[in-house]
């Protein structure tokens, strides 16, 4: 009996890894540019479809496809920020919400027109079905562990980038005070674009794992956004390692809820989120 529950919790922790992958890109764009990209989930789904094309039409191995997508993702994010979102960044948060909301609709409907509404999935081969037995009836999927490891590595890498590199310091500077940055000769326009590019690289990584972990369809974007959003609020705005904890909390909540049915799985996540919001609105490890 307990083995079932431990398995569920373990599953939830691994799921938390996937959720952290969703959240890191949002954490970056929200933390640096101070706006919430409502199309964030849709971009993850867009990347999934790109990976689908690469794996089915070019027959690429999913890992290779993901690596191939990353530089494209950077360029895409850089361009999106530099040429579209830069025009609406600023004090008026409404503008950004509207533009990213519109983008979200455009992507969803574009994907619908292009690929149809059928759910898709990429096969992860042997890794997807292999499990590791931990004894006493406790098992964990290999792919799940790899995903969790990827999340930890990604968070660590971003942490390194932000706190140990020159560009990282510049990103944190514009995030602190963009006007001051401009005054001393930092090009906030270019730095924002770089930050967005990095955010999109994480979107590419997230898509790489999501496309194998679960089904996706053109309408999957919003649920990913809500998950990413809940993770960063739970973890504490601005804290990358906090998102890892937030992801795990959400994953475990969902996993336990999922014992009953799908609706309860999602509801459990929202309920836990609202409870934490009620009791500790600044999140678990707030930086601001």
């Amino acid at each position, binding site marked *: 009996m307990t083995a079932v529950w431990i398995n569920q919790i373990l599953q939830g922790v691994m799921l938390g890894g996937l959720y952290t992958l969703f959240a890191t890109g949002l954490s970056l764009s929200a933390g640096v540019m101070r706006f*919430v990209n409502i199309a964030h989930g849709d971009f993850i789904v867009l990347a999934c479809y790109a990976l689908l094309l690469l794996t089915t039409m070019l027959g690429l191995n999913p890992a290779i496809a993901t690596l191939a997508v990353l530089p494209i993702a950077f360029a895409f994010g850089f361009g999106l920020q530099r040429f579209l979102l830069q025009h609406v960044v600023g004090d008026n948060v409404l503008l950004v919400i509207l533009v990213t909301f519109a983008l979200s609709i455009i992507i969803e409907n574009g994907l619908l027109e292009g690929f149809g509404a059928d759910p898709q999935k990429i096969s992860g081969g042997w890794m997807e079905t292999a499990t590791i037995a931990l004894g006493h009836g406790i098992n964990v999927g290999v792919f799940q562990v790899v995903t969790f490891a990827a999340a930890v590595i990604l968070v660590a890498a971003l942490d390194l980038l932000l706190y140990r590199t020159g560009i990282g310091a510049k990103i944190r500077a514009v995030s602190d005070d963009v006007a001051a940055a401009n005054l001393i000769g930092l090009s906030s326009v270019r730095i924002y674009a770089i930050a967005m590019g990095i955010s999109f690289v994480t979107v590419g990584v997230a898509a790489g794992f999501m496309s194998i972990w679960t089904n996706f369809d053109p309408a999957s974007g919003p649920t990913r956004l809500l998950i990413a959003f809940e993770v960063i609020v739970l973890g504490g705005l601005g804290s990358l390692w906090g998102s890892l904890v937030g992801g795990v909390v959400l994953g475990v909540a969902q996993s336990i809820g999922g014992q009953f049915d799908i609706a309860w799985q999602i509801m459990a996540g929202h309920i836990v989120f609202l409870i934490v*919001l009620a009791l500790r609105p600044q999140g678990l490890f707030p930086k601001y």
Partner: protein
Amino acid sequence: MDLRSKLVLNGARVAFVVAVAAMAAAPFLFSATHIVLLTEFMSMLVLAIMWNLLAGYADIVTVGQHAFVGIGAYAFFGFTALWGLNPYLAIPLGGLVALVISVPTMILVFRLRTAYLAIGTWVVAELLMLAAGKLSAWGGGSGTSVPISIILSFGSTRGDRLATIYWLAFGLAAVAMLVTYFLLRSRIGIGLTAMRDNEEGAAAIGVNVTYARALCFLGTAPFLGMAGAIITLQKLRIAPPASFSITAWTVFIIFNVVIGGIGSFEGPIIGTVFYFLLRQYLAGLGAWHLILLGGFSIVIILIEKRGLWGLVRRVLSDDLIPIAHKPSAAFVTATKAASGPAAIAETQEPAS
């Protein structure tokens, strides 16, 4: 104001009054198909006015107002179909339930700021939709139809029913407009405008910012709920994804208000009209029509932040429906005489 501008402005005002009168008498003037369309228009107008009040005046951007629309729908169904209350009574009761639920919602989401608040409202909406899907008496996940007996209580013939439901929708829209109008012209309304221009300044002169915001948030809930009840009468069904549809009750509404002109009284009206015209002429495009709407709203934001109404306003000398209080002519001349050449303040930024 020169004579020509005055003529144009007053002409526009007269046209507006005539339009309102026509709308009031619509069931006598238009065919059944048109009445159905106008009923939908009125419902969407209510939603647009409410979202605009929050986002355009109270500085609260929400993307979760469909929560209250759905609650109104489900509460309405509960009161009348399940517990046998008078359907006409069930509509305002639906609004009341929405109001009740808006209180804990507000307490929770007001802990977040700006964009996070917006998505917080979305989370609440999702939760409520999922919870609604668990209510078996309401048809669970697939929903159920409104019982015939309820429908018949709005009129024995189809024509009568359409007219009654239309007048309910029109009535709600009219009340929504009047309440918004008086609110914006009241002390609270002026405080809101001050808050919108400069929050710290407004607080410094005694505007209770939190109170104003809370009042607006809670105040929109009953209207959204009642709109939800009326929409249920049009759709004749309740179902979680339909009653709580983010696309229909939030996304479209937001696009419409932005295109029409956010933060103005006329904007939601223009935006909703534009939406219906677009839908009529582009009906065949399917998903593309949503993309078009989204794309157009982005273009509008980048060109003229005040929307289509903003473009009209460049030509018109004053608002169609005057909300702003104007200083008297005597006050204006006195102030001009008192101040010398404009003092240049380096650090001051004129409110736009």
